[in-house]
C-alpha cells in the first residue's frame, strides 16, 4: 500500500470514531424522553421528521440530487405499514422492515427516471412521481381507504411494549431506536469509500468520472437507500399515530423536509435531526401563538435564509466549532 493510500485510510478510520459529543447527543435524546414523558408525542414527531430529513440529506447533501417529491417514499412506507397491518401482519418491527423495503423498491424503480436530465427536470419528475403515487392512493380506496385513510391495529413491540396513544413514551423510544440504527448505518455509509465517491460526484461529475468513478450506479444506490429511510419514517408515522391518510403524500411534507434540512445544514448527518427539532419547535411555538398564520413566519425565515446566503451562514457556524468537531461533522 502506498503512503498516500495509507494516509487516506488512516484519515477515514479516525473520522469513523464516535466523538464524545455525539455519544452525549444520543444519551441526551434517551434521557429527554424519560425526563419529559408528557412531551413524548412532540419528541416522537421530531424524531420521525429527523429521520425523513436525514433521508433527504443522503440524496441532496451527499449526492447533490435535488428532489421536490421525497414524500413519495414517505407515503409508500406509511401506506405499506398500514396495509400490512390491515392484512394481519400486526408486528410493528416486521411491518416497518417490509414497508421500508417496499419504499426502497419504489425508489430503485424510479431512480433511473429521476437521474436523467438537469436539476430542473429532476424537480418536476420527483414532484410528478409523488403526485402520481398520491393520486393512486386516493383512487384505489379498496386498499388504502381513499380519503378516509386507514387505521392500524398493532401488537406491542416484542409483545411487551404497546405503542400508540396508550404508549406514547414507548412510541418515542421505538422511533428513537429506529432513528439511531439507521443513523449509525448512514454514518458508516457516508464515511465509506462509497460515500466519498458520492461527494466527489456531487462536487464535479466530470472530474469524478475522469477518476474512474461511474455515476449512475452509485446515484441509483444512494437514491434507493434514501427511499428506504424515507419509507421507514413513513412507516413510523403510521405505526405510532395508528392512522394514515392522504396527507402523507402532500407537497407540504416534501417542502417541510427540505426546509428542516436547510435550517439544520445539508451534507451533515446531524443537520436533519437538528433542523427537524428547530423546525417543529418553531412551528409548535408559532402555531400556539398564531394558529392560522404560522406558515408566514416559516416562509419569511426561508426567504431570509436564502437571501442571506445559507452556505455562508453554515460556514460561519462551522467556523465557530472547534477543529476536531468540524472534522467529524464533515
Amino acid at each position, binding site marked *: 500500500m502506498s503512503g498516500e493510500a495509507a494516509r487516506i485510510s488512516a484519515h477515514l478510520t479516525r473520522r469513523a470514531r464516535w466523538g464524545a459529543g455525539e455519544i452525549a447527543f444520543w444519551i441526551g435524546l434517551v434521557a429527554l424522553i424519560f425526563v419529559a414523558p408528557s412531551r413524548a408525542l412532540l419528541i416522537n414527531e421530531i424524531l420521525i421528521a429527523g429521520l425523513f430529513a436525514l433521508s433527504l440529506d443522503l440524496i*441532496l447533501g451527499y449526492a447533490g440530487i*435535488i428532489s*421536490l417529491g421525497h414524500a413519495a417514499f414517505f407515503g409508500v412506507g406509511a401506506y405499506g405499514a398500514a396495509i400490512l397491518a390491515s392484512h394481519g401482519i400486526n408486528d410493528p418491527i416486521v411491518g416497518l422492515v417490509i414497508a421500508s423495503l417496499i419504499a426502497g423498491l419504489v425508489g430503485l424503480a424510479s431512480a433511473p*427516471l429521476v437521474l*436523467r*436530465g*438537469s*436539476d*430542473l*427536470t429532476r*424537480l*418536476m*419528475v420527483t*414532484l*410528478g*412521481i409523488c*403526485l*402520481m403515487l398520491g*393520486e*393512486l392512493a*386516493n*383512487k384505489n380506496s379498496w386498499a388504502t381507504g381513499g380519503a378516509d385513510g386507514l387505521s392500524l391495529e398493532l401488537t406491542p413491540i416484542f409483545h411487551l411494549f404497546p405503542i400508540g396513544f396508550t404508549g406514547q413514551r414507548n412510541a418515542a423510544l421505538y422511533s428513537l431506536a429506529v432513528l439511531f440504527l439507521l443513523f449509525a448505518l448512514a454514518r458508516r455509509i457516508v464515511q465509506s469509500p462509497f460515500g466519498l465517491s458520492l461527494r466527489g460526484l456531487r462536487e464535479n461529475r466530470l472530474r469524478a468520472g475522469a477518476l474512474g468513478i461511474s455515476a449512475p450506479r452509485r446515484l441509483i444506490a444512494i437514491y434507493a437507500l434514501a427511499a428506504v429511510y424515507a419509507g421507514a419514517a413513513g412507516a413510523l408515522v403510521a405505526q405510532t399515530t395508528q392512522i394514515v391518510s392522504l396527507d402523507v403524500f402532500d*407537497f*407540504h411534507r416534501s*417542502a417541510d423536509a*427540505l*426546509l428542516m434540512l*436547510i435550517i439544520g445544514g445539508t451534507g451533515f448527518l446531524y443537520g436533519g435531526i437538528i433542523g427537524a427539532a428547530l423546525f417543529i419547535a418553531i412551528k409548535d411555538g408559532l402555531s400556539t401563538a398564531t394558529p*392560522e*398564520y*404560522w*406558515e*408566514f413566519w*416559516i*416562509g*419569511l*425565515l*426561508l*426567504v431570509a*435564509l*436564502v*437571501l442571506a446566503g*445559507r452556505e455562508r451562514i453554515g460556514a460561519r457556524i462551522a467556523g465557530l466549532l472547534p477543529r476536531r468537531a468540524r472534522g467529524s461533522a464533515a
Partner: protein
Amino acid sequence: MLTILFDGIAYGMLLFVLACGLSVTLGLMNFVNLAHGAFAMLGGYATALLMNRCGVPFLATLPIAFAAPAILGVALERTLYRRLYGASPLDQVLFTIGLVFMAMPIANYFLGDQPQQVHLPLFLQGRVEWGGVGIGIYRLFIILVCGAIAAALQMFLIGTRFGAQLRAAVDDARVASGLGIDVDRLFTITFAIGCGLAGLGGALAADVVGGIDPTFPVKFMVSFLIVVTVGGSNGVLGALLGALLLGVLDVAGKYYVPSIGAFIIYAVMVAALLIRPQGLFARSGGR
C-alpha cells in the same frame, strides 16, 4: 364528445394565460418560480373584491387584475428575485416556496379562508346549442380572450424589436447582452407581463375553479409546471400547445375515466420529461 373537447380547450387556454409567464421566466433566466401562482391569486382576488365590495363590473376589473400583479412583480423582481438569478436551482426553489408560504397566510389573514366568488355578468352566463354541441358562453368568452392574448403575444414576439431581443436573450442571454441588449431591463418587463397575465388568468379562472381561496398558489402550481415542462420553455406556441394538450386530457380524463382522475396528467408530464427533457414542443437544437 365535442362539448368535452370544447371545455378542454377552454381550460387549456386558461392554463396557457396562467402559465405563459412562468415559461418565459424559466426560459429566459432559468429561474424556477414556484411562486407564480401567488401572482395569479392576486389577480383573482382583485377581480373578486372589486366586484363584490365596490360593485365594479366584471370586464372593468380585468385590467386591474392584470396591473396589480404586474406592479407587484416589478417590485419583487427589482428587490428580491434579481439577487437569485445566478443561484442554484435549490436556492431558487427554497426562496420561491418561502414566498408561497408567505402569500397564503397573508391572503388568509386579510380575506379569510373561504373562497371569494366571482359572479359573472348575465351576458356571459348560460349555454347555447350550436350544431348539437352545447357551448358554455363563458367558455367561449375564455377561448376568445385567451386566443386573442396568445395571438397578440405571438405577434409581439415575432414582429417587434422587443420580441426579437427577447427571443435572442432566451436563446443565449450571454451573447445577447454582448450584442448590446439590456437583458436586465428585458427581463424586468417580461417578468411584469408574465405576472400580469397570470393575474388575468386567475381572474378569468375564478369562476371555472369555484372561487379564489388562499390555497390557490399550491393547488395550481403543479398545473403550471406541467404546462411548462410539456410545452418547453421557449416560445408562445410550445406553451400554448402544452396547455391545450393538458387541458383536453385533464377534462376528458376526468369525464371518461374518473377512476384514475388526475393520474393521467401527471403520467403525461413524467412521460414527456423522459422522452424530451427540453419539452415536447420545444424547438430542437436549442440549449
